[in-house]
């Protein structure tokens, strides 16, 4: 079935130079295993294609059941130089949680 990523994970984002970081945390071990497989840098880059002008890096933080994404060049110049509304990437976590993904029908969801 197709569900919102927010049923499997929570997230927080902030700025990192002229890019942002999004920490995506799975609620369960099964959820983390699925996210590791599905949430490749390419998938995240495609999701943010209108926002992220650079590449996407992914780091694994298994002890927190988390993936940390760096969205390069996603703040319109970054910090004080930018004139866009979200110059600090504060909304990028919520944006990522809007993604829809396919999970098995009996998958445990929040």
């Amino acid at each position, binding site marked *: 079935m197709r569900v919102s990523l927010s049923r499997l994970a929570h997230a927080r984002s902030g700025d990192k130079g002229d890019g942002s970081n999004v920490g995506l945390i799975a609620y369960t071990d099964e959820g983390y295993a699925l996210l590791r497989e599905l949430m490749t840098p390419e998938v995240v880059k495609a999701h943010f294609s209108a926002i992220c002008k650079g590449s996407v890096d992914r780091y694994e933080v298994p002890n927190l059941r988390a993936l940390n994404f760096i969205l390069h060049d996603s703040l*319109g110049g970054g910090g*004080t130089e930018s004139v866009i509304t979200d110059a600090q990437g504060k909304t990028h976590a919520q944006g990522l949680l809007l993604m829809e993904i396919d999970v098995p029908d009996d998958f445990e969801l929040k």
Partner: protein
Amino acid sequence: MGRSVRIGNGQGFWGDSIDAPLRLFRGGPIDYVTMDYLAEVTMSIMQKQKLRNPERGYATDFVQFVDEVLPDLKKRGVRIIANAGGVNTEACRAAIMESAKRQNVSGLRVATVSGDDILDRLDQFRDSGVRLAHMETGEGLFDADRKILAANVYMPTDGMVRALDEGADIVITGRCTDPGLVLAPVLHEFKLDGWDGIALGTVAGHILECGAQSTGGNFTRWWEVPDMAGIGYPIAEVSDEGGLVITKHEGTGGMVTVETVAEQLLYEMGRPDHYITPDCIVDFTSIKIAQDGVDRVRVSSVKGSMPTETLKVSISYLAGYKATGQLVVSGPDALAKARLCAQVVWDRLAMSGCHFDDTHEECLGVGVVHEGIVPPAENAPEVVLRLGVKDVDRAKVDRFGKEIAPLVTSGPPGVTGFAGGRPKAQEIVAYWPALIDRKLVRSEVSVVEVGS
């Protein structure tokens, strides 16, 4: 049972709640109140204030806070650590000493920790071949002519620790790392051996540094957070056995759970196994977190290693001007009318000969911040049109500000919400992150007692 101390953070950034540090101070047992006032842009603003008035250039909010708590400070044995000194730690201390004298508080020791401000040393660095190369582009700071506004080194905690060792009740620093404000009292209290102990204190500081972001603020499942208005600010309980628990005062709002803490652990994170500070390198993939009672999260198994030979310098320079202005566009076809408004502004500016280095338009309410993720709300009943420009020519940027209001009478119908006057050009303060050999800077500590 080991000895433990409670270190709180009552100010996550410049502009955070002014009541939060007071509630942290008064709302329950606490040994240290730490406060962070310095965003990157703050240093350049403070340099300007100091230029206009040599008695300024620090966070005046902090002095107001100290003024309120001074009578109880010594009595309760609470110590305060804040980077409120900005670019003028001496003036900040003078204001606090003044307050102490006025309130007849004696025996109060106030320390300044400085050495971070290298603005006056830049010429000397240039002449001796220190390039201060941009961390991303590799370009040397002095390769082109730049109007530099501020230059501050993110200092290690040694100065703050020394100030506490010398009995300071209040420690006022310039630029330091945010986690350093919490690490300093941990090192003063426990003299933790080895990199893992320093890393533990650093992680405590990282979790606390954004105030209520670890106690339910900015949390994904916001509807579960009780009493957000009365949200408690975070407290790190650190014990001499190297234990660390994140909590908050009893009876305050918000919540401390594995999930609120995990979100904050990842906040503004780059490479998680290699979190570099002036004091150590932390491996965030080593950390274990577990619920340890209501509103208590235990953090353990933190691994650290030796820091690098360099320190980070934050340099700010003038990079032109910017302005943004907005209008509300309502009624049928609000989005189409908003887009017309934007086109009219750009066309009129072009007719007056104004072309900009960069322009930007947003129709807020239609799905701007999640562009490409949510389908645009074509039928939005109202739209906030937000326009922005950037240019090196201040006059042109000011000219843009005069072109917003006329739309109310000379554009499409249903346009309103123009308030607050014409947008004015603001300086663009750009950042130049660089590294500097740590041997070139030194923490300077001075402790003064009121009445002495």
